[in-house]
């Protein structure tokens, strides 16, 4: 196990710049894709944007919340940017849809992007056959999908009782019963997604750390 950990650490050291770059690209690209999805879904370009003092809010929350656990959970939901479409046909205008850029979710997506980057680097360096390689990539994609899905930050004036990650999926057409069923599973799905990615990394690192005849039919070193 030490060799596996050592292999992972070596790969992280070798790839950290790429991982950071991929993490940043993934986090930003995901925001962009959510925005595109909203524009396509609602056929309206965004017509308002609001910026929030995230750092000021975080300091204020820490100062006014006795429990650290509560403070962290509240800061977790704080927004940095809100961009959306305001419908002025009703009242003084009502936000029909919005994309919320939430720093905590950006961090999650950054970690996700970096992890996927590491997975793919390990897959590329692995000497397995095409089928196994594709299976690894597909599993990596599944893990990424689960995490990304639960970090969607699209919202509208629908779930006025409990805004949550499934709102974004509902906006894109997910059925009511499915979204209600999924709503409480957010942390589980996130854990499952990251767990899947971690599993892939460990498997690939193990294959590299303990090369065997079965894993390498040609008998050549996996990284030859």
């Amino acid at each position, binding site marked *: 196990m030490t060799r596996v950990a050592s292999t992972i650490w070596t790969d992280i050291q070798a790839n950290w710049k790429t991982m950071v770059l991929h993490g940043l690209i993934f986090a930003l690209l995901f925001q962009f894709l959510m925005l595109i999805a909203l524009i396509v879904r609602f056929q309206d370009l965004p017509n308002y944007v609001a910026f929030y003092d995230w750092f000021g809010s975080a300091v204020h929350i820490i100062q006014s919340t*006795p429990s650290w656990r509560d403070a962290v959970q509240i800061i977790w939901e704080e927004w940095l940017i809100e961009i959306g479409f305001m419908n002025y046909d009703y009242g003084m205008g009502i936000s029909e849809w919005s994309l919320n850029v939430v720093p905590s979710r950006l961090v999650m997506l950054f970690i996700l992007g970096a992890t996927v980057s590491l997975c793919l680097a390990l897959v590329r360096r692995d000497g397995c056959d095409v089928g196994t390689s594709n299976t690894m990539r597909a599993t990596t994609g599944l893990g990424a999908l689960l995490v990304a899905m639960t970090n969607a930050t699209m919202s509208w004036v629908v779930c006025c009782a409990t805004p949550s990650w499934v709102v974004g999926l509902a906006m894109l057409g997910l059925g*009511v019963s499915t979204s209600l069923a999924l709503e409480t599973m957010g942390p589980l799905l996130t854990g499952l997604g990251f767990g899947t990615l971690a599993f892939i990394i460990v498997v690939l690192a193990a294959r590299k750390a303990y090369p065997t005849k079965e894993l390498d039919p040609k008998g050549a070193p996996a990284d030859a």
Partner: protein
Amino acid sequence: MKHFTKSAILAAAMMPLASMAAAEKISIAIGHQSMCTDTYTAGIVVKELGLLEKYLPTDGKYADAEYDVSWADYSSGGPITNQMLANKLNFGVMGDYPLIVNGAKFQETDSLRTLYVAGTGYNLKGSGNAIVVPVDSDMYSITDLVGKEVSTPVGSAAWGMLLKAMQDNNIPTSEYVLKNQSPAVGAANIAAGKIDAHSDFCPWSEIMEFRGTGRKIYDGSETGVPYLHGVVVREDFATEYPEVVEAFIKAVWEAGEWIRSDPMEAVSLMEGWTGVEKEVLYLYFSEGGHLTLEPSIKDEWVDALKFNHGVLVKEKAIPPLDFEAWITEDYIRNAYADLGIDYDADKASMVDPVVANDGLPMEIWHARDGVSSYPSLPDFLTAVAAMQGTGAKLNATYVYDDETGLKLFGKTAFWVKAGDEYATFLRKGEAEAYASANGGSLVTFDEAIADFITEG
């Protein structure tokens, strides 16, 4: 003696600090909803009339206090709760379902709580929520929704009403397609005929009716579950500044009095503040309207909130809520006592539209002359015909549902003519039944008016 001297010196040294403490700046931040009529008496009216400032304490520990009152407008209750959790808002004004989530989410934390300190207004039977179909739809009853697509803002009071209405009418969820939709998109879809029906909260259904795009087929009053809105405040704020909370409740009470004193003037001003058409607001705030403006916390409200919490627990798995710890009458009782009003009398009173609206006059809102009232439908129709004959612009007309006592737009009611008598109904089914029982027939509003157009 030495100890006494030290204490005296210390006390003298602390005097300036004490005075500085008294001169503290008290920030009061309130989250309200200008697109939700039932919150207005704790929201836009208090804000625009400066009623909170009027009642804020200025003596005792508040003698040198500097108040910084700020208001933030939201489209729904959810974000208000999030902002209250972040302590960016001290007070929140919202409807029953979001209120429950507010209390439950705070009680889920280790260190934060809110208190439900006052109502804003209510409808005893649940009017305010409704199911609307496109105006040209051939659906006239909730039972027509079998096999159809129905949208609603999931998690709202309108969603809870829809679930109960369907259950009451033995329509299981498998027999209709439920879609999650925001009010603005739902209203647009109704106008375009893109959805079979849409269930929404106040005042969206009436906006659709007034604009001529939608027609109610089911009113929330049929569920019999009271529809209410209220005020929550962070407990830490209430503990530190109880007199400010009481001031807020006094402002809520006065906002109700102000509206009652001249509803037409009030809704005209509110239209300017909120953008919601005054004719729609009049349906809520006038005598016989959907909303009873009275902030007391009645036992029936607690029962209704518990019922709603049960729905949310079942459908959305929200956290538990200790109602005993959450709801308090301490502040409202003190506020009423200061105002010299009998709280228990208000708490005991209950306005049932069926009883209260019986015999109320019909109304015509003339664009120039304002609102005039008429004791009978023939008198009303005579006046409408006469006004139309002069080419006058009528903003709206108001009649009452024979069945429920609900105030309706004259143009959206189903009219029955039986001999020389007329009756008005919310739903076609009841109108047909009445016509059948009384040897009458359904007529349109224009046909009823035409009966009273005089020659020359």
